């Protein structure tokens, strides 16, 4: 499904040069649920961005479903983002002027697939348990509800790889647990999941835990 080989990502130049990723290699199979953990600044978010083609790399190779994506042009990356990768951010990042349903439909607007879009959007909202809030603006939704909308938006393009960066970081424990439960369900449905979290407790939900420190993978354990 996903393979990165010896990837480095450096920021800045000269003495102020910082290696956010320092020769990272990782292979994720289809259907896996991987948690990436580590302290702040360990490079876990950078790793996620690199995997998703949101950030360039300084060295190494990134393959997604057998296709190399680190050397793609911006125009080609658009296709990858539309068809292969779904993102969930810590800050939800919903468009404030659009309702929950419209936010969910946004990716379809960009990929110009409008056939049956409305029905699919409603279906996705149902999947995350929010069909009753479809016509509310983000400002009228709680944090947990906003994150559910963001997850529905991530899923609507039928991407099989879901990348989540601290999806519960802004939520209280109980709401966060609900979101994590949703992720677990998605994984059981067959979605490949990579979840970045600094919380060991959250990480334990995943079958596989990748620990990072100073831009390197220091531990890669596959649990029971």
């Amino acid at each position, binding site marked *: 499904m996903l393979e990165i080989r010896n990837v480095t990502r450096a920021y800045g130049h000269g003495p102020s040069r910082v290696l956010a990723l320092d020769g990272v290699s990782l292979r994720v199979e289809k259907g896996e649920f991987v948690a990436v953990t580590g302290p702040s600044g360990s490079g876990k978010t950078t790793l996620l961005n690199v995997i998703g083609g949101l950030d360039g790399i300084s060295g190494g190779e990134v393959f997604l479903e057998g296709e190399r994506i680190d050397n793609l042009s911006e125009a080609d990356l658009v296709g990858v983002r*539309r068809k292969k990768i779904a993102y969930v951010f810590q800050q939800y990042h919903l468009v404030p002027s*659009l309702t929950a349903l*419209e936010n969910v439909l946004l990716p379809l607007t*960009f990929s110009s697939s409008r056939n049956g879009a409305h029905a699919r959007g409603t279906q996705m909202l149902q999947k995350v348990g929010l069909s009753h809030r479809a016509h509310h603006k983000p400002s009228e939704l709680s944090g947990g509800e906003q994150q559910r909308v963001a997850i529905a938006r991530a899923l609507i393009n039928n991407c099989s790889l879901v990348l989540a960066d601290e999806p519960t970081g802004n939520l209280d424990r109980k709401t966060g647990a609900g979101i994590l439960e949703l992720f677990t369900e998605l994984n059981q449905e067959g979605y490949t999941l990579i979840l970045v979290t600094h919380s060991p407790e959250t990480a334990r939900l995943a079958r596989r835990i990748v620990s990072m420190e100073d831009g390197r993978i220091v531990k890669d354990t596959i649990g029971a």
Partner: protein
Amino acid sequence: MRLYQVVAKDALRRRRRVFYTALGVAFGVAVVVALLTVSDAGEEKIAAELDKYGPNLMVTPATENLELQLGDLSLGTLAMGDTYIDDAKLPTVRKIADDAIRESLNIEDEGNIAIVAPKLYAKSRINETTVTVVGIDLEQESLLNSWWMVSNGVYPGGPNEALLGDRAASALDMQPGDTFQIEGREITVSGILDETGANADYQVFIPLQTAQEVFSKEGLVSSVDIRALCLGCPVEVIAAAINQNIAGVRAVAVKQIAESEMNVINKVQDFMLAIAGITLVLGMFGVVNTMMSSVHERTKDIGIMKAVGASPYQIVRLFLYEALIVGVLGGMIGFGAGTALSYAVGPVIFEGAKISYVPEYIGPALGVAVMVALVSSAYPAFRASRIKVAESIRSM
């Protein structure tokens, strides 16, 4: 949901911002609309003022100077031809002038359009003083010389009434109501012409027919002044047509006057358009500025849109659609404000000019506004399309 709906909803949420950006466009458009509207009114006013320069076409008898030669010896010149024009030709002159104007303005008016003012000049002695007596068509002459004022007495109306030039009146020592004799005919002074600074000050005006009778020039006139009462009327075409169709006369377009009239008006308009252009460019900087800060403000939003699949081209479109909204809004505000401004300022610039709003300008106003908004948004849109997703999300 389509892209433009996303933009419309977003613009509605940020309506204050969009409104302020539109004001930047509206400012330039308002100045353009105001300038054009005022100069439209001013043009008529200027044309009316320039009428004071007199006729723009003169018809005189065709005289030819014949060189008299005997061998190599020049014996001087001899003026050949008539010194008067048969006034039976006047209707033809009028018809030619009116037809040319009708054709040029593309109108179907049946009545008289041009002013055709025939004159008969004669030297005469009044009370032992030699004066130039001019027989005039009372009605046409007063139209031709629209600036003539008679504050002492009244403009003559009857066959035996005279209008005296200011200087002529003092030389003759006459007041309205006084009478004098011309070639045995008793004439009453009905009015004294206010000083004009022109030849008229030294002349004595009597009705054309009276002049023809007393000087025994029945059916004859010395010259005809024609004023085509429209801006840019084809005076030269009229002159050529008269020369071609009427024998014995020569029509001359008073070219410099006609041309300088147009020049003045064109210059005024050029100047105003230049100011309008500068204002538009200044307005554009304002729009670029607000658009750029809008890009900065929305860096994160743009990053999100890219993360969920927006292409750089779609990001550009988002901004251009917004520019379209800004342009249309700015164009409408600008047209309204510009028209209001012209009503306020116009009468001050051109005293007494009648300002009327020009609905035809709303199309160009919208067009210019949209163009300005689009051009100003091009660079910000390009910048937005280049935003890197990872960086924009990090910058939240």
